[in-house]
C-alpha cells in the first residue's frame, strides 16, 4: 500500500522499541528498518503486509504505555510497520478513551462517577480529587511528568463503593485499579506502586450444592476464593480440565447437544440461545472458524466477569477451549476491557501455563485437536462489548457495530464464521458438562435454565456477587445481600444496568427470570441489581445515564449519535425546571427512533432506563 507518512517528529527510540516489542523488529528497509542489500531489488507488500491491521490496537497500547500518548511520529511508525494508513490509525486511536492523541501527563487517573459509584458518593470523591489534584483535566505536578485526573464510566468495581483506574506511562505496571479509591491512596500508589498490596477478596455467595432442589445444580462460584488463580495445579486439584476431557469424550456433536439440551441463554445481556450460535458456526463450511470470549464487561453496575476472571481464570481458558472444540475453531480470542489489568494478567498467566502443559496448542490434552487463545485488550469503549463492534475492534478497527444480517456466525472475525460469548456464559458451559445438559435444563425455571450471577451494588448492606438459580425473586436477592442498608426504604432498583430498566418497590416479588422480566417490561441485562434507597437523587442518576450514552455512542448511526445528545439535552431542560409534560412528545419521538432505527443494542436501549423511569413516575411531572 502506498502510505504517506508525514509526521515531522519521527518516533523516539522508546516508542519504536515499544512497537517492536509487540510485533518484533522490522526485517527490511521497506517496513521501517535499515536498508538491506536485497531491498534494492525486492519488496513484499500486498496482502501479507495489509493483513497485520488486527495488531494495531495492541501496538497503540504499547505506544500509549511507553509515552503517555500516541504521537504523530509513533503513529507513523506503527503505520509503516503494519501497513495501515495514518488517517485510519488515527481514527482508531481517537475512538478509544484509554488512548490519548495529544501530549499528556505521565499519569492519568480515571475516577468512576458512574451510577453505582454515584450512589456511593462519587461526587464527593471527585470533590476531594479536585482539592488534591486540581480540576479534572488539569495537570498536577508529580514526578516530573505530571498527573491528571478525569471522570470515568463504570470501572466494574461497583461492590467496592468507589473506584479509580491509574494509567501510567513508562511505569510498571502501566495500569492498576484502586478500589475503594481516595486521593491519598492514589497518591501513595503513584509514589510507591508496591504500597497497594493485594486487592481485597470480593463478597461472593453461592448456595451449597443441592441446597435448594432435588437434583444437582450449577455452581459458578465454587472455585472463586477456593483455588489459587495463579496455579494450574490448584485448578486441576479442584476438578479443572475434567470438563474438557468430558467434552472430548462426547465429541463435537455430543458437546453441542449438551449445550442445546441445557437451553443455555447468553448471559451478556441479549439472552440469545447459545446453541444456535454454536451450531451455526460448527456447521458452516467456510474455514477457519473463530471463537471469541466477550470479556469487555462495561455495562454500568456489572463486575461479575471481572471477579470470575481474576479469581478463576483457568475456568475461562478451559471453557473457551471446549467452545473452540465444539465450534471447530483452532483459534480463540479473549477480548478483555482495558480497565481490568488484574484479570488480564491472571488470564495471560493461565493461558501461558496451560499452553506449557499441553492444555492449549497443536494437540490439546492429547485429544487430537488444536486450539490456542490470544488475549486482546480493549481500550476504553462500552460499545466494544457489542459483539460485532468487538469483532471490528479485534480486527484493529474502530469499535463500530456492523449491521446485521449477516450475523457473526456467517460473517464474523476476518469475514469468517465466528461465535462470541460472554464470560459467564462460558463458565456456565463447564457446569452444563459437569451435571449434564438435561440436569442443567431442569434447574431454574421453564424458560430460564441454570443459575445466574447478580451484581448487587448501591444501597445494600453487603454489595457483592451472588449466584441464584433462576426463579429467585428480586426481594430474595436483595435480602440475600442484607437488604437495603441502614434500614432505609427502597426507592427503586435499576435492573440490568444503564441499558436496563428501573423497577419500583412493588416489583420486589418479581421472579428474576428472562420470561418474567420481559413480561414486566424489564430486562435482566448483565445481572445488575443496583439498589436505590430513598436518599438517592434519581434525577441526577438519570442525567448520568443520559451522559453515559452520549459518551459511549460510537457515532456511526444518526438515531444514536444525535438521539443520545438530544436525550441528554432534554433531561438537562427537565432538571432546569422545564416540566416533563412539555417534553413528553419529543421524548416519545426520540425514544421511538433510537429504539427502532439504531444499528445496535446500544442505541436501541439508550432510552430504556429513562423510559422506565418516566413510566414509573420517578421523574417529577412525568407520572403517566
Amino acid at each position: 500500500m502506498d502510505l504517506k507518512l508525514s509526521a515531522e517528529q519521527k518516533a523516539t527510540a522508546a516508542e519504536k522499541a515499544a512497537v517492536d516489542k509487540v510485533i518484533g523488529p522490522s526485517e527490511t528497509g521497506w517496513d521501517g528498518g535499515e536498508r538491506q542489500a536485497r531491498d534494492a531489488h525486492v519488496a513484499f507488500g500486498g496482502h501479507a503486509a495489509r493483513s497485520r491491521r488486527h495488531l494495531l490496537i495492541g501496538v497503540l497500547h504499547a505506544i500509549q504505555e511507553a509515552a503517555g500518548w500516541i504521537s504523530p511520529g509513533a503513529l507513523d511508525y506503527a503505520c509503516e510497520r503494519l501497513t495501515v494508513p495514518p488517517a485510519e490509525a488515527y481514527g482508531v486511536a481517537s475512538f478509544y478513551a484509554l488512548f490519548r492523541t495529544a501530549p499528556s501527563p505521565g499519569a492519568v487517573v480515571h475516577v468512576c462517577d458512574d451510577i453505582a459509584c454515584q450512589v456511593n458518593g462519587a461526587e464527593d470523591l471527585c470533590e476531594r480529587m479536585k482539592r488534591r489534584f486540581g480540576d479534572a483535566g488539569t495537570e498536577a505536578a508529580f514526578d516530573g511528568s505530571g498527573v491528571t485526573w478525569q471522570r470515568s464510566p463504570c470501572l466494574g468495581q461497583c461492590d467496592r463503593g468507589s473506584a479509580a483506574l491509574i494509567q501510567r506511562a513508562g511505569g510498571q505496571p502501566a495500569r492498576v485499579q484502586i478500589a475503594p479509591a481516595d486521593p491519598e491512596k492514589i497518591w501513595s500508589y503513584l509514589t510507591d506502586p508496591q504500597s497497594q498490596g493485594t486487592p481485597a477478596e470480593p463478597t461472593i455467595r453461592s448456595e451449597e450444592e443441592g441446597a435448594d432442589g432435588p437434583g444437582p445444580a450449577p455452581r459458578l462460584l465454587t472455585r472463586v476464593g477456593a483455588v489459587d488463580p495463579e496455579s494450574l495445579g490448584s485448578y486441576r486439584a479442584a476438578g479443572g480440565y475434567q470438563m474438557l476431557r468430558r467434552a472430548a469424550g462426547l465429541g463435537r456433536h455430543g458437546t453441542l447437544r449438551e449445550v442445546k439440551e441445557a437451553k443455555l441463554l447468553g448471559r451478556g445481556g441479549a439472552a440469545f440461545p447459545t446453541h444456535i450460535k454454536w451450531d451455526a458456526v460448527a456447521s458452516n463450511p467456510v474455514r477457519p472458524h473463530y471463537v471469541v470470549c466477550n470479556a469487555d464487561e462495561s455495562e454500568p453496575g456489572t463486575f461479575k466477569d471481572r471477579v470470575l476472571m481474576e479469581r478463576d481464570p483457568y475456568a475461562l481458558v478451559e471453557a473457551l477451549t471446549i467452545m473452540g472444540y465444539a465450534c471447530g475453531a483452532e483459534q480463540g480470542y479473549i477480548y478483555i476491557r482495558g480497565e481490568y489489568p488484574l484479570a488480564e494478567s491472571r488470564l495471560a498467566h493461565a493461558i501461558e501455563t496451560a499452553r506449557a502443559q499441553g492444555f492449549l496448542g497443536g494437540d490439546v490434552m492429547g485429544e487430537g485437536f488444536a486450539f490456542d487463545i490470544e488475549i486482546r485488550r480493549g481500550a476504553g469503549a462500552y460499545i466494544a462489548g457489542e459483539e460485532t463492534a468487538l469483532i471490528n475492534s479485534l480486527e484493529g478497527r474502530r469499535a463500530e457495530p456492523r449491521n446485521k444480517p449477516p450475523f457473526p456466525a456467517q460473517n464474523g472475525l476476518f469475514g469468517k464464521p465466528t461465535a462470541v460469548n460472554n464470560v459467564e456464559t462460558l463458565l456456565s458451559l463447564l457446569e452444563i458438562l459437569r451435571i449434564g445438559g438435561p440436569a442443567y435444563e431442569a434447574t431454574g425455571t421453564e424458560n430460564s435454565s441454570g443459575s445466574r450471577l447478580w451484581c448487587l451494588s448501591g444501597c445494600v448492606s453487603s454489595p457483592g456477587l451472588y449466584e441464584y438459580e433462576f426463579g429467585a425473586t428480586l426481594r430474595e436477592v436483595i435480602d440475600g445481600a442484607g437488604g437495603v442498608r441502614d434500614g432505609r426504604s427502597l426507592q427503586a432498583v435499576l435492573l440490568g444496568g444503564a441499558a436496563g430498566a428501573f423497577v419500583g418497590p412493588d416489583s420486589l416479588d418479581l421472579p428474576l427470570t428472562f420470561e418474567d422480566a420481559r413480561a414486566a417490561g424489564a430486562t435482566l441485562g448483565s445481572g445488575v441489581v443496583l439498589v436505590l434507597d430513598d436518599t438517592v437523587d434519581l434525577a441526577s442518576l438519570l442525567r448520568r445515564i443520559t451522559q453515559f450514552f452520549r459518551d459511549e455512542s460510537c457515532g456511526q448511526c444518526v438515531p444514536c449519535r444525535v438521539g443520545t445528545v438530544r436525550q441528554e439535552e432534554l433531561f438537562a431542560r427537565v432538571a432546569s425546571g422545564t416540566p416533563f409534560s412539555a417534553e413528553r412528545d419529543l421524548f416519545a419521538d426520540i425514544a421511538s427512533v433510537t429504539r427502532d432505527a439504531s444499528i445496535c443494542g446500544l442505541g436501541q436501549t439508550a432510552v430504556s432506563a429513562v423510559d422506565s423511569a418516566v413510566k414509573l413516575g420517578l421523574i417529577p411531572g412525568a407520572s403517566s
Partner: protein
Amino acid sequence: MTAVFLETPKRLVDVEIDGRTVRVPEGATLLEACRSAGIDTPTLCYLENLTPVNVCRVCVVEVEGSRTLVPSCSRAAETGMKVHTDSERVRTSRKMVLEFLSSSADLSLASADVQRWIAEYGADPSRYGDPEPPHAAGARDATRPGEHEAATDGAEAATVHQPVKYDNDSYVRDYSRCILCYKCVEACGEDAQNTFAIALAGRGFDARISTEFDVTLPDSACVYCGNCIGVCPTDALMPASEYHMRQEGTWDESQQTVTSTVCPYCGVGCNVDLHVQDNTIVKVTSPLESEVTHGHLCVKGRFGYEFVQNRPDEQ
C-alpha cells in the same frame, strides 16, 4: 471450448411491499425493490457506486417479524418478506433522522430531494431550541472520546457548526454541513481511491471526518482526486472554484449545461460530465453508471480542465 463469459443467471424473488407484490432479482436490496415499484424512499448515505454503510437510517422500512426497522439500502429482499414503507414507525424514524440532522448540521445545500423529504416528513429542527454557537476552529477536532461537557440547561441544541476548513487551492471542507454519511471516507478508501487520506475520528457526536491528527490536506495523503466531493450529499465538500462562485453569488445551476465527454489525458478514457456556465467549465463530475469510472476520477480528470479556458498563449 468456447471461451465466452457468462454471468450466472439470477433467480427472482417476490416480496410484498405495502401490499403489492414486487419481483426483483435475487440479491437485490429492499431499496432497489422499493424504487423499482416506484416508491419514493429517502436516502442520504447510500450511493450506487459505494458499499452500503447503512448509517443514516433514513431509508428504514418495517419488515414483519423484525423487532426493529431495517435499512432498506442494505437488506436483501427475501421471498415472502412483508414490507411496510409508510407505517407510523417508519414515518417517525424518517422524520426524526431528518430532524436530528437538520438540527445539528447545515443542510441548506443538500439536494432538492432532501429538502422535499424534510418537508414531507415534517422534520422540525426548532423543537430542540436554538442551535448552539459555532465551535471554534479545531475545537471539535480536539475532543476526547468518552468525555464531553455536560449539557447545562439543554436550552441550546448541540451542532457541528464550525469554521470552514480551507487549507488548499482545490477543495473547501465545510464540516458544518457534514452529516457523517461516510461516503467521502468510502470514496477515499476501499470503494474507489484507496488513498485513505481521511477517516472517521473521535466518537459519538464528536465523531468527525479527519486526516491524521487533523493535519491539513496538503500534509495528508490526499491526492486531490475529488472523489470525496463527488459523493458528498450536502456540499460539505466542494471544489474551491464552486465555493468562490457561491461566495461571489455567481454560482447559478439554472444557467449550467452538463455535457458528457471523455477526459483528455491518459488512455483509460474516463467519462467526464462537464458542467458549463457562461462558456466556462465550472465543475467536472463522472457518471456513476460509467463502466470505466464508476463515477470516480483522478486529479487530472476532475481539476485539470483549466487549460482550455486559461490558455497561456491566448491573445
